[in-house]
């Protein structure tokens, strides 16, 4: 069986699941961020794969480009927030930062 659309989709699905797993299980906020990056990458693979095999033309690639830009912005902001959290709580473990409960 030649490599086709499905192969890429499965790779992206697995990547996506690992991303969710990382988000759910890790305590460190930076690790959560890494999980988010994994998910974004999975989405990007889907976009590009459909752009290659589907009938969307280059729209998929453009979308992937947008996602990459968004990821950059998101990472920058998230890390800035993290630094502030670290300064406030002296930890970045998300399970210790549960002020939301109160």
């Amino acid at each position, binding site marked *: 069986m030649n490599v086709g659309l499905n192969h890429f989709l499965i790779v992206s699905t697995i990547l996506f699941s690992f991303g969710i797993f990382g988000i759910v*299980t890790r305590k460190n906020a930076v690790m959560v961020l890494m999980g988010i990056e994994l998910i974004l990458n999975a989405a990007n693979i889907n976009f590009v794969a459909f752009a290659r095999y589907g009938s969307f033309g280059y729209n998929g690639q453009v979308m992937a480009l947008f996602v990459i830009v968004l990821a950059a912005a998101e990472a920058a902001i998230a890390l800035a927030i993290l630094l502030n959290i670290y300064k406030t709580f002296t930890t970045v473990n998300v399970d210790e930062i549960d*002020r*939301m409960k109160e």
Partner: protein
Amino acid sequence: MTESTLIKLAIVILFLPLIGFIIAIFFGKKVKYTYVLEVLTVGAAFILSAFLAYEKLTNFVDREIISEFTWINIGSVSIQLGMLLDNISVIMIFTVTLVSLVVHVYSVAYMKGDKLYGRYFAYLGLFTFSMTGIVFTHNFLMMYIFWELVGLSSYLLIGFWFEKKSASDAGKKAFIVNRIGDIGMFLGILILFLTYNTFSFDTIFSQISGGVLPFGTETGLTIAGLLIFCGAIGKSAQFPLHVWLPDAMEGPTPVSALIHAATMVAAGVYLVARVFTMLTGDALLIIAIIGGLSAFIPATIALTQNDIKKVLAYSTISQLGYMIMSLGVGAYVFAFLHLITHAFFKACLFLGSGSVIQAMHHEQDITKMGGLRKKLPFTYVTFLVASLALSGIPLTSGFLSKDGILAGTTAFASLTGHWLLPVAGFSVALLTAFYMFRLIILTFHSAPADQHKYEHAHESPKLMVIPLIVLSALSLFIWFTPNPLNPDAGAFLSKWVKTPEISVPENARYDFMNSAVAGESSHHEIIYSEEYTEALHGAHVPAMIISLIMALSGIGLAFLFYQYKKVNVDKLAEKFKPLYKLSYNKWYFDEIYQASFVAGTIGLSRLLAWFDNKIIDGIVNGSATVTKWFSNFSGTFDNVIVDGIVNFVAYFSGILGLVFRKFQTGKVQTYIVFVIFSIVILLFLFKPF
């Protein structure tokens, strides 16, 4: 050189002053030499526009170059922005950038030492940018935008010395009076937009000639034209709204030269020239009458004014009246010619007056001057040349255009019977010559009134003299025609500026505007009827002779009155005291406006305030009493029944909350796990796979 290159060039010309403005406004305070940059950008704009005008007038003389792009799509309506390059716009841009450049150079010396030096140049740049925009626009929307920008920047420039109360008041006055005209223009543009769904000139005009009219009638077209003309009334300081212009002399003198000679006030005339093709006969007649009035009234006012700049200001209004009147009577080309020639010599006059004022240490009263001829030789000569041009003496450019206007008016009167217009025109010629030479004699010839200031007067620096020389040289006939008596001989009128094709329906035009032979009106140019041509031809020589006589007699009278003192001026003034007072107090326009509009507005608002206090408040208070009573009742209801229910709900949800708080750990990740499980459950329920 292709058309697209010309368009690109025009865009560059448009944005160069803006770049200068942006840089100057942001760095003007910190950097000392922003004015150099400002002068350089405007200089570059001038060079480019000279190049542009040359290319356009040699290679594309019969073409209208239009470039447009879609700005916004709203539903089915798409709004286009774009540039229009035709002969009048390139000639106009050449004039505008030239005068602007000259004023910039002049200002470098004139404004030296001002504490807001950088900002001043920034404003000049902004003004030049907006004016360039007006010239290049091909649609009403952009025209309106830049129109307002011009209004704004002129406000900034007139009120430049805002510490002075009079200056800031003058700025506000100019702004508000302009706004009144602009409202009319805005309404006119809206009427046109509602009718044609577009702002572009060419589309609107072609639709008019195709028979589509606002409200379906010629009257609608007349109204639309007049409303747009309202904008010109405001900006060009025409008869009812001319009051701002004399006050605007509070601004720096170079600003007066820029705004009130070549650009802003000319914008109104330019606007009328742009929309000339859609003006009906009725509209044109009203325009001509307003033009005639605004030519005559300020001329009489100028006779008695003593402030050097005020005299020039009233003379400006009067000359603008000439142009408007000329447009009104269909002498389109002469109006445009006068626009250009007037731009040069009036700018020269203003700059010359600035030179005088600076030499006299900011003394503006001409009765306190005198004898400056020897102290300021360059200023005197250039001022004299420009005054001759303004008076319409042969060998000057002013003679060519003024003669043409008078001839056109005479021909018009002979065909339609409105003889008052030429009479007004000729008398204005007399008055103009008189007051200009009164000014010159009092300033430069007669014995010095203030010996101390006379002693200290000195010729202005080179940077101020050179602009004067350039402008006065441009006031000579040679640039416009080789024959000093016949303006038609030059390329300017014979090749470049043509009356546009009238797109108004034939029954709404002046009779003589219907072309003699049907189908000959090609090349965007109308051929007026043969009678008109004959009348114009016939009126040419008499008009020339009469206007010359008028001008010479005006000059002669001025010399009699002031130089040789044959007639005692004060006694004459005593004799015609009411007339003198009327003229000296500017026909009481400001007072009338104060009494009618300002007082009326205040009275109306008092009335409204009374209405508000007594009647509306009474109703409100009454209803409040009712409400109070009702709320007492509902308070009781609330306490017993509603609160009972609410308390029960709260208790119930408290119990629920005790259960559900176990799930709320405050950790987002736990929630995500819940989300995943719920998604899984949902997926199982709906089985998408």
